[in-house]
């Protein structure tokens, strides 16, 4: 079975600084990759996904993630964060025909 590791449980960062939230997965077969976000006191929602094609995918609010097959990673990045990006971010992996598996989550804390 595949597993997903988010190495950082918390990432504090100052506003307008760049950020990278790390995600690594283990699978010997092709997978689909996702990032979900949970803003304070809200439900989870899909942020972005990689299914195929270009290895760099973007969200509408400036986040991007790059699929790196050789490193089995799907790190989430943003060049300049806002206070409003404070949230819990979950990486997830799906192997065809299986269920979605989530990582443990990373709490992004943006400070003024």
């Amino acid at each position, binding site marked *: 079975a595949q597993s997903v590791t988010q190495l950082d449980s918390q990432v504090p960062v100052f506003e307008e600084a760049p950020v990278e939230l790390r995600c690594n997965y283990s699978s010997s077969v092709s997978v*689909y990759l996702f990032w979900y976000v949970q803003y304070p006191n809200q*439900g*989870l*929602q899909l942020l972005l996904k990689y299914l195929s094609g270009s290895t760099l995918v973007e969200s509408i609010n400036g986040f991007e993630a790059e699929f790196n097959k050789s490193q089995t990673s799907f790190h989430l990045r943003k060049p300049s964060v806002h206070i409003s990006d404070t949230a*819990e971010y*979950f990486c*997830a992996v799906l192997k065809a025909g299986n*269920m*979605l598996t*989530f990582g443990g989550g990373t709490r992004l804390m943006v400070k003024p």
Partner: protein
Amino acid sequence: GAGVSQSPSNKVTEKGKDVELRCDPISGHTALYWYRQRLGQGLEFLIYFQGNSAPDKSGLPSDRFSAERTGESVSTLTIQRTQQEDSAVYLCASSLAGLRAGELFFGEGSRLTVL
């Protein structure tokens, strides 16, 4: 509405009582998940239903927990003889199959408090 609906939104119960939580997935979604999220914690997988296949119950923490799903519609999560450590938000999510299988739509959750 067109989203995933969960009820009750809040439930306060006494230790030892049974509770039943309900999830109405989006119509046409073949996959349904239950998760538990304790305060300030990540998602704890409980159970997964996919179409008419046998559910994956590997995440249920004890035999006090059980879940059923009627076809590809409503699901109920039952917790028997509740304990204080069962206090959490219980989240339900549903998705389509195939390439859309990773696009989960979450409900607002059922917040359970066991006194």
